[in-house]
């Protein structure tokens, strides 16, 4: 087991993550009932306030806090207990991130920031909302640099050696995060804050949108890569095999640094101010992530097959039956992976240049991110939660908890399948996203959307309700594992941190030369962004004043 102080830090991160999860999923439940006109909100609460809270709390707070809990635990386990400086800065980072979170959430609750989690200008929230977001990012940076410091100590003490795979992947994710945040920090610090506090009168809207999406797309990879760490490093251990290929795993991860950042324009394909050439160039770069994704898919199935054959499976697909289906740590992540197949395919559709017009800002997109971040990422995190908390608290993961965990992941899958299928179809029919209940004055086209069996408001509400039930089961499991489950006294009751062995003997050293990857990443960013962004600044129209339209 890892050092007590490191466990404490990780548990605090997890606690904040699940408080955000609790409130965020409740907001989700309220939404489906408002959207089918079954629930009237009191005058002081607005649909878009709830929607903002749902997005911020789940997509930003739950994910980030959980990711740091996972990183802290895994880094302590793979490269050793934190030194006093690393520990101090980790705690400072934790508190700054938390203060930022609380400030931003307070502004949302006060109705001062119903700008949704994309906070597009010239909707103008209270300046303190942007300060909250800035603190959130700065806090994660402090925590990130603490982990980088910890890693550097290990590198210094192990000269010429490649770091353990978990540490390498953690640092990759952090490098990606640090570069990605430059966009949002630039826009919040130099555009939004001066404008919201009245120090500057107007804002360059198109520039702020582009800087946001410079951050917004790699943000999804910041969620996804920790899930990939689990797929690459945790799952093989549960299956009883080694990491399939250490070098390919590292190569896939560095490719994600390169191809997840210079691609933000694919979120802006239907808007003015960016010429078709630059939009298309970024579409091409976007598609390059398919290569590491295919490598990942191959590795996963290779692991499954090798493990199955080791257990005596024969024939082409015999290994499938030999997978450890009764182990909820595995089954949860397997379902997460299965959801990512349609999720990834949908992503290809979204980014396909002119095809984007069919789905942009429709409910299809909502369906899409519920089967990407909402299931593959979230359910991987759930699959980790089941053993991570008992591992950190030294409690048992009892038989009854394991059964409940199965109920939880199965209800989540069913709820998500119903809700996201409805959303995908509704989006193709044309129903817009981010809207409260509306039938557009009984317009026949709008009435048609919700006419189907799968596309009715009922399906979405049933899906949403099942999801909420599942979320509450998870909260129960979290509380039990944190405070109430019996202590694991006997060795066989102790929960382990499954970390697979990885054979580094054939891995080339240049894969861990960060300057190569950071260098190429910046070169690609300059190619993709330098000219269009500078033309946005030089040919800027008169800027926009702020509006509070809620």
């Amino acid at each position, binding site marked *: 087991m890892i050092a007590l102080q490191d466990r404490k830090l990780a548990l605090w991160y997890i606690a904040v993550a699940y408080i955000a999860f609790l409130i965020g999923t409740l907001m989700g439940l309220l939404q489906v009932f408002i959207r089918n006109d079954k629930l009237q909100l009191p005058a002081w609460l607005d649909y878009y306030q709830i929607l903002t809270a749902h997005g911020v709390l789940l997509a930003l707070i739950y994910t980030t806090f959980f990711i740091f809990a996972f990183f802290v635990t895994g880094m302590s386990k793979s490269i050793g207990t934190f030194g006093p400086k690393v520990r101090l800065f980790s705690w400072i980072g934790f508190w700054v991130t938390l203060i930022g979170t609380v400030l931003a959430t307070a502004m949302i609750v006060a109705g001062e920031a119903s700008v949704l989690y994309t906070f597009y200008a010239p909707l103008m929230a209270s300046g303190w909302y942007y300060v909250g977001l800035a603190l959130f990012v700065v806090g994660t940076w402090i925590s990130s640099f603490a982990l980088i410091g910890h890693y550097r100590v290990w590198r210094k003490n192990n000269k010429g050696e490649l770091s353990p795979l978990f540490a390498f992947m953690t640092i990759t994710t952090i490098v990606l995060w640090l570069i990605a945040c430059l966009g949002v920090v630039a826009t919040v610090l130099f555009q939004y804050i001066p404008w919201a506090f009245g120090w500057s009168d107007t804002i360059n809207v198109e520039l702020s949108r582009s800087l946001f999406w410079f951050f917004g797309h790699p943000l999804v990879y910041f969620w996804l890569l920790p899930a990939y760490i689990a797929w690459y490093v945790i799952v093989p251990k549960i299956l009883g095999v080694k990491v399939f290929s250490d070098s390919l795993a590292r190569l896939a991860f560095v490719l994600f640094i390169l191809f997840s950042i210079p691609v933000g324009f694919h979120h802006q394909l239907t808007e003015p101010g960016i010429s078709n050439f630059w939009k298309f160039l970024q579409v091409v770069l976007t598609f390059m992530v398919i290569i590491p994704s295919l*490598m990942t898919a191959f590795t996963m199935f290779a692991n499954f097959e090798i493990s199955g054959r080791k257990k005596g499976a024969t024939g082409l697909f015999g290994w499938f039956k030999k997978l450890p289906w009764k182990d909820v740590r595995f089954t949860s992540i397997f379902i997460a992976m299965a959801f990512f197949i349609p999720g990834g395919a949908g992503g290809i559709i979204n980014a396909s240049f*002119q095809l984007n017009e069919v789905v942009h800002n429709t409910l299809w997109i909502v369906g899409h991110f519920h089967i990407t971040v909402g299931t593959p990422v979230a359910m991987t995190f759930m699959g980790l939660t089941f053993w991570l908390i008992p591992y950190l608290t030294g409690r048992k993961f009892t038989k009854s908890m394991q059964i409940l965990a199965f109920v939880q992941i199965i209800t989540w899958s069913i709820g998500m399948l119903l809700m996201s299928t409805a959303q995908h179809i509704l989006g193709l029919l044309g129903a817009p996203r981010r809207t409260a209940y509306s039938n557009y004055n009984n317009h026949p086209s709008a009435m048609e959307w919700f006419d189907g069996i799968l596309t009715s408001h009922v399906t979405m509400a049933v899906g949403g309700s099942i999801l909420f039930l599942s979320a509450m089961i998870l909260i129960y499991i979290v509380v039990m594992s944190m405070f109430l489950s019996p202590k694991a006294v006997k060795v066989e009751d102790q929960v382990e941190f499954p970390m697979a062995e990885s054979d580094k003997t054939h891995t080339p050293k240049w894969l861990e030369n960060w300057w190569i990857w950071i260098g190429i990443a910046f070169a690609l960013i300059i190619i993709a962004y330098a000219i269009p962004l500078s033309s946005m600044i030089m040919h800027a129209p008169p800027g926009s004043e702020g509006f509070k339209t809620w």
Partner: protein
Amino acid sequence: MHFHKFEKIWLIFGIISLIVFLSIVGVTAFSHDHHPSGGMDTIDPEKIEQTAPFDNPGVTQIDDDTYQVAIVAMAFGYTAPELRVPAGKEIIFKVTSKDVVHSFTIDDTKVNMMVVPGQITTRAYTFEKPGKYLILCNEYCGTGHHFMFTEIEVY
């Protein structure tokens, strides 16, 4: 670095598919002009009423086969008096915003334009079937976002 034989086949197949796919998208985009909506024209968001074509919003016939439709989006509606256009003719939509970001989205068509203050979004479209089409805003713009809609009649 060692690639398993099957992995080589898998990746080569994947990369070739990727090249074919991107070529199709790129060729149709740039040789057949199948671009999503966009445009590089800018405008002063405070002086929209004085700037052409928004000083005279609505439908204008440009020549026998082309019509232009100028529309101003604002929270929570569109300045678009009586939108009636013929089927089978090219309609060029030009849209801008007076306040926050909106969209101009025509249901059952591929017209799905982001409307950004300070910029003019352009999209050409030819309606095939006559009828009344719902136009709505699909970018969150405030409390009344879900009441922001209008209609276009194609004859």
